């Protein structure tokens, strides 16, 4: 029997049993589409994190106070520090070679008030270097002055949302606001950039690090961000940083260093595993579709007993009958898969348009994996019905008797 003839034969069957065919197509299509769409979500999350990190530049080394004794595992975000990491430590690091910029950070929250309007926001105490290291810039006004690392200047830079909340559309540069118990002059407004690593840059205030030190009455830094030279050797820089800290901390290098790469790798690992797990869960729907195909094929075999007997009487062999039934399932699964891929593709496009900040995209393996699983499940689950059809006794089958 020719392939084209078989396709035609199966096609006529599908047209004849439209409801049955549409239901099966739906089952397979939904399965395939859900695998692709769910893995797209996982992959989207991975890309999102990836993008967030690369927005910071990949030459970033973060120094946290305190040290975790267990190595490996997820990088610690906070550490309990026996000795504070101080502004003086950060200034000492500035003298190391291969380090382009050092941005000490003190973080806390404080109410920011202007007139009757008040808003509780994150206060970031840092120096002019923070703008370079975190790739931020101002839309209006100026960034923190160079002196911000040594003097408690009464100036601040506002996030765009905070500015909007306090000033509306009026000019903020040169105006005074109150942050905590201190009055300071607005010298700049950050450009709109959305979130960065979970920190809403639009809704915060940046003040000189000395000012923050006084506001929160603490000499300890939250962390120090180091930007390295473009071709710097991370391991060597890390060794030197530890050396400087050891010198200044009575022989203890009680800091934790996190490189951009190690953090990114950790996130990548987590999100890839997550995506695979999601794919496996979605694949269960394909298994269900396979079982549905088996059920319906078995019903089809018993409904078409006469036809099967006839095909055999007309010179069809058991192998041909088996092929017809297997071919029917595979064709159905193929059509369903095509529909599913199309639906998923459209859905991903629509979501990408509605929500452009999230880079939703199917990973390269999701389409072959989804279609492959669907085909395999269709094949495996139609083996039993096909074998049963092939084994039918044509004489009894044509009399329409039961076995």
């Amino acid at each position, binding site marked *: *029997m*020719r392939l*084209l*003839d078989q396709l035609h*034969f199966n096609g*006529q*069957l599908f*047209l*004849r049993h439209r409801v049955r065919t549409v239901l099966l197509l739906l089952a397979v299509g939904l399965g395939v589409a859900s695998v692709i769409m769910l893995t797209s979500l996982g992959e989207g999350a991975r890309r999102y994190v990836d993008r967030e990190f690369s927005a910071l530049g990949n030459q970033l080394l973060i120094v946290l106070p305190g040290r975790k004794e267990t190595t490996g595992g997820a990088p610690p975000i906070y550490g309990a520090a026996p000795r504070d990491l101080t502004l003086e430590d950060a200034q000492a690091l500035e003298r190391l070679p291969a380090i382009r910029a050092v941005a000490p950070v003190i973080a806390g929250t404080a109410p920011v008030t202007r007139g009757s309007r008040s808003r509780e926001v994150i206060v970031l105490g840092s120096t002019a270097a923070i703008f370079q290291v975190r790739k931020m810039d101002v839309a209006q006004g100026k960034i923190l002055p160079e002196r911000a690392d040594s003097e408690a200047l009464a100036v601040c830079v506002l996030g765009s949302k905070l500015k909007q909340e306090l000033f509306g559309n009026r000019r903020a540069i040169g105006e005074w606001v109150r942050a905590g118990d201190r009055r300071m002059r607005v010298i700049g407004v950050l450009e709109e950039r959305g979130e960065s690593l979970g920190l809403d840059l639009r809704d915060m205030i940046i003040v000189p690090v000395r000012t923050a030190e006084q506001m929160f009455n603490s000499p300890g830094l939250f962390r120090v961000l180091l930007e390295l030279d473009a071709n710097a050797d991370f391991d060597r820089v890390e060794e030197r940083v530890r050396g400087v800290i050891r010198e200044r901390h009575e022989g203890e290098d009680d800091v934790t260093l996190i490189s951009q790469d190690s953090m990114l790798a950790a996130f990548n690992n987590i999100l890839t595993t997550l995506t695979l797990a999601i794919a496996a869960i979605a694949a269960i729907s394909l298994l269900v579709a396979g079982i549905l195909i088996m059920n319906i094929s078995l019903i089809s075999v018993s409904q078409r007993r*006469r*036809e099967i*007997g*006839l*095909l*055999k*009487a*007309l*010179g*069809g*062999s*058991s*192998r*041909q009958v088996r092929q017809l039934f297997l071919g029917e399932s595979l064709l159905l699964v193929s059509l369903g898969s095509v529909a599913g891929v199309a639906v998923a593709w459209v859905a991903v496009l629509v979501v990408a348009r509605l929500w452009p900040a999230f880079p939703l995209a199917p990973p390269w393996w999701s389409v072959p994996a989804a279609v492959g699983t669907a085909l395999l499940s269709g094949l495996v689950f139609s083996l039993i019905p096909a074998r049963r059809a092939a084994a039918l006794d*044509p*004489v009894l089958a*044509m009399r329409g008797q039961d076995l």
Partner: protein
Amino acid sequence: MIELQDVNKTYLVGESPLQALRDVNITIDAGEYLSVMGPSGSGKSTLLNMVGLLDRPDSGSYRLEGTATEELGEEARARLRADYVGFIFQAFHLINRLTTLENVELPMMLAGIAPKKRRQSALDVLEQVGLADRAGHRPNQLSGGQLQRVAIARAIVMRPRILLADEPTGNLDQASGAEVVEVLENLNREGITLLVVTHDAQLGKRARRRIRMVDGQIESDTGDGNAPAGSTAL
């Protein structure tokens, strides 16, 4: 040439065995016209399926055109069936979703013959049974007599040597039955071996060779299947 030697066949009906064929010996030459009659359960349908290679003997041998069929595998038997045997059933067994032409083409499609060639062959045999103008109709648009003639066209489209008809007029009225019998006898006149299984004594008597079966055995075998037409006992 059909040769059955000491063929036995036993079916299990529920718990008890039923011997459908008991030491059957029969030789049928090319071009014969014979009928097989007998009460229900006498084994005449089993004989027909045996000859048509749909069934295998438990013991004994069956040679078709010199080939010992009992040694063949399922694939080879299917091929032999496709090349030598055409079946006609009481219930027609046409596939409703296919057109008349597609139904007739079905054996050629299973045999893997190219669409162009089989379309021509199918149109030729439809012409032969007088239904060329119904090629595009579906079975539910045809009368019983027409359906059986389509089934005959399907049975002969592969140009078989043997035509096996199981109660070919059983579901038809007198007039349509007569039409169908005429088509079959015409084919026999052109050289095809025609074996008709029937309850209908009128139809049975038309055959030149008449076999009567009782309890799986051939009770009587009268007439000469190849005697010239007209010499039949009418």
